[in-house]
């Protein structure tokens, strides 16, 4: 996807020069491999820092919440779905945005790749569908598909849903993928097995809240875990409080999550946080035929009422 960079710079330069937007939000190259940094350009000169490659997995919709003025934003499939969700939820107006759409072929999993090698990785280079990973005394070229983050590997909305201009040709959507394979596996467990599974999943949590803070859906002025008058949730490492945070946050994302994977990508402890949100995404799909962020004209199932709602959960 590196070929998008020049086109992104060209568009960003144009919309800034024409005064269509005051800033363009994108990524710049990070100081360590596989860690690009969200960044903004405000002038034609500063767009040169912008880059695009398979390390742009953070969700940029997180950076436009309640922003004033006109903003250019680079959006892959999932970012665009979260922009749609933001518009529906009145966090930004569609006409404030100039969306530079990026048809995406997936982002690579920096945690998985770091874990594959005992030694430190010094460079990771993308060339077409191949990734070359190099460190002191080793170099390995692998197919990008094998290295994708778990959400990208099962993504069926790679092309942006909503955009003003594209930075490249639309790509073919993935078919024959099962986004909910791991949910089905958990669903088939006994109650005890499920308990142990989630207990083990959450045991490394240090409550840094990176998952929440990287999530474009988590924009509450005060999160329930930060309520102090009265305090709702304990602040220690007590497993009950850790669980409460993760479960309530997941439910708050029900019908809104686009499975962008930002929560997992940012977790310093490598927790598979999507195990919670994916179950709710699956329920929304099965009960209401709903996937978040696909249309500006439809209300999400959990903030509307229809007489033919299935009500399966209450029977």
């Amino acid at each position, binding site marked *: 996807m590196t070929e998008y960079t020049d086109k992104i710079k060209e568009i960003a330069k144009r919309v800034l020069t024409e005064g269509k937007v005051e800033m363009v939000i994108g990524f710049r190259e990070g100081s360590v491999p596989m*860690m690009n940094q969200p960044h903004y350009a405000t002038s034609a000169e500063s767009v040169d820092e912008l880059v695009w490659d398979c390390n742009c997995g953070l969700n940029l919709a997180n950076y436009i919440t309640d922003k004033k003025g006109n903003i250019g934003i680079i959006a892959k499939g999932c970012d665009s779905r979260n922009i749609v969700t933001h518009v529906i939820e009145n966090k930004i107006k569609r006409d404030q945005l100039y969306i530079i759409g990026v048809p995406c072929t997936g982002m690579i999993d920096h945690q998985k790749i*770091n874990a594959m090698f005992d030694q430190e990785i010094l460079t990771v280079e993308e060339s077409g569908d191949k990734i070359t990973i190099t460190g002191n005394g080793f170099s390995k070229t692998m197919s990008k598909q094998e290295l994708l983050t778990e959400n990208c590997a099962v993504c069926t909305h790679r092309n942006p849903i909503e955009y003003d201009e594209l930075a490249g040709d639309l790509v073919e959507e993935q078919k024959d993928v099962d986004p909910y394979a791991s949910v089905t596996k958990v669903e088939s467990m006994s109650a005890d097995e499920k308990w142990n599974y989630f207990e083990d999943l959450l045991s490394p949590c240090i409550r840094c809240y990176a998952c929440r803070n990287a999530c474009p859906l988590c924009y509450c002025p005060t999160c329930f875990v930060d309520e102090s008058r009265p305090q709702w949730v304990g602040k220690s490492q007590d497993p009950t409080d850790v669980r409460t945070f993760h479960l309530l946050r997941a439910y708050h994302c029900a019908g809104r999550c686009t499975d962008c994977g930002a929560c997992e990508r940012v977790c310093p402890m490598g927790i598979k946080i999507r195990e919670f949100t994916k179950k709710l995404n699956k329920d929304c799909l099965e009960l209401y035929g709903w996937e978040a962020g696909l249309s500006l004209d439809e209300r999400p199932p959990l903030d509307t009422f229809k007489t033919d709602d299935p009500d399966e959960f209450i029977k």
Partner: protein
Amino acid sequence: MKLIKIDQQSWAAGIEKVKSDYRVFGPVKEKNDHEFKLLEQNEMPDVNCQNTRLSPKSIIYPQSQVMFTYSLDESKDDCRIMKEVENVKSPMAIIGVRPCDALAFPIVRRNFDSPEYQDTYWIKAYEATTFVGLACNSACGTCFCTSAGTGPFGEEGLDVLMIADGDDLYAKSITAKGESFIQAAGWTTEAESAVDSKIDELKTAAESSINSSVATDKIKNKTILELYDAPFWEEEAFACINCGTCTYVCPTCWCFDVQDETHGKSGIRMRNWDSCMFPLFTHHASGHNPRNVKYERLRQRFMHKLKYYVDKYDNGIQCVGCGRCIRLCPVNIDIRKICYKMNSFDAESCVCEATSS
């Protein structure tokens, strides 16, 4: 100081032996990463671990720590009396502490054990612990210990420094505590004198493997307000999501929050790590928040480590160059870059530029 040679067999035997005198902690690989854990019987510290994901600070200063218990039962004499909880019962030893993490303990001690205040929980745990370090033979790309007051063979904060050479380990006791630990392990074989030059070679090679450095020399002479009002904070904070990762993985971040939790008629008073990245950290009871926006919180973290601490203690920076915050920051905020910006910032030229444009 004499150097002890430990071959593989006596290493394993020695570690098992000291477990009867100490609670022994060491790096263990769990899932994808190494963490310091209390070692069970026959469990060995992994000396091939480059460094653990989290620092060993939680062994001395746990993320959640009960300080007092109390009762709310009016029928009892001790109702509403805070009773101190005894946290440390036996000697501890932490094996495989890297020199960067070791230096963090004397840094943190300036906060927890000062002439005015002594934090009994931290001090008791610290004093009960023997720090057995392991020199680094090669550095990570994110290491900058040599410009943060130590080095790959740094000894400050350690009781023993071990050096790995192939399958052999060499141990040098630095304090009396370290001497006792080596005796308890039964390691007695003195190394041949020729080893000294070999160790010097390893040290030189290790130091030259560090390719990151930061300059902080000019920060001290700038005024607080000059840096505080510098124009780069907002731009540098743009990507920041204000999570607690940098502070929680940092070996020198020491802030905590005190909480009471009551269940029925009994309760505990505990402390939990807190983070200056969180809005709640400075949220006043009035509702006012003096650090209401994220760049102010990011600025606080770096100003504390690189300016306020430096001015207050006149003993270097509050950073040991372990590089964890660089490796684990989800959005690539890099302390080396912030250091550079702060150190090279020239308020006068900046004002001129702003006025002329």
